[in-house]
């Protein structure tokens, strides 16, 4: 399955995402430079990687969303292609309006780089079908602006539509304020769009997808994508019927 990794000026997890899709999952991968457009037909999966696009100056993701490549991302999203935004990629998706809400500085104003526990909110997605709902997994975070904000109506809707993919939790799956590294509303760490083909998340699954790195919890996210793309799982039925 053909994967694209968009390279914005200041992206720095582009090589990591590329490496996972190509070397760990064994799938064809390509970099797309932000100045290029592409056709939605060219790729099955489009990854917006982490980093500091345009230095995160002004607001994280605010400037990157105007890149020519983003025009193609909008089209691809519309066509139902899978879009995965990790960290800065998530921030760009929010700024671009492909996902609801906004990102603020972490509440303690510090960059946080460490492992967190995540409770899987929904496994009913192209990205998480290999996890169990309610399961607790461990992934690293590395961000200074991961404090997710949305108004109460939006949150209500995200919940109703089962679009919250990960919550920051403790090791046992309790969603507590202590387990919230950045102040995100309701400990939200990742969300889907309405059509469930766009995922934005702050934790880095690509950094925990190999044995040598001591944790493979993130690999299942990429395997889920493959399962879905290769037609072995269907999603969304339970809710929409």
């Amino acid at each position, binding site marked *: 399955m053909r994967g694209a990794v968009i390279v914005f000026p200041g992206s720095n997890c582009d090589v990591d995402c590329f490496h996972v899709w190509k070397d760990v999952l064994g799938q064809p991968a390509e970099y797309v430079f932000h100045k290029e457009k592409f056709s939605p037909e060219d790729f099955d999966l489009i990854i917006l990687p982490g980093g500091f696009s345009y230095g995160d100056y002004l607001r994280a993701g605010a400037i990157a969303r105007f890149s020519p490549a983003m025009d193609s991302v909008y089209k691809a999203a519309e066509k139902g292609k899978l879009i995965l935004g990790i960290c800065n990629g998530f921030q760009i998706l929010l700024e671009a309006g492909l996902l609801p809400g906004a990102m603020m500085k972490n*509440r303690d104003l510090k960059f946080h780089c460490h492992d967190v526990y995540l409770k899987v909110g929904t496994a009913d997605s192209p990205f998480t079908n290999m996890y169990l709902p309610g399961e607790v997994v461990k992934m690293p975070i590395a961000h200074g602006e991961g404090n997710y*904000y949305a108004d109460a109506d939006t949150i209500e809707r995200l919940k109703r539509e089962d679009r919250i993919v990960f919550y920051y939790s403790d090791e046992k799956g309790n969603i507590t304020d202590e387990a919230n590294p950045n*102040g995100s509303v309701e400990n939200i760490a990742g969300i889907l769009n309405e059509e469930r083909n766009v995922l934005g998340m702050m934790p880095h699954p690509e950094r925990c997808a190999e044995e040598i790195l001591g944790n493979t919890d993130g690999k299942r996210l990429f395997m889920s994508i493959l399962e879905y793309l290769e037609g072995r799982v269907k999603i969304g039925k339970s809710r929409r019927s």
Partner: protein
Amino acid sequence: MFNAKIWVRFKNGVLDPQGAAIKGALNHLGFEAEDVRVGKLIEVKLKADNLDEAKAKVEMMCEKLLANPVLEDFSFEVVEESI
């Protein structure tokens, strides 16, 4: 040439972590700060044919890029540069 001063503030109701931190620090230093909000001051020098056009442009800039409507409000002032 026109000079615009743009203020971008968090909306009421949005918790401002930087403001909270500064408030804490100010009170620690013995100032009695009741409330602190941190926003951005963006100064733009721009070309336009006249003041109205300049204002319209600045408004557009804010809507498209400088402020995030989910979180922020903006206001601005534009003056013609005296040469």
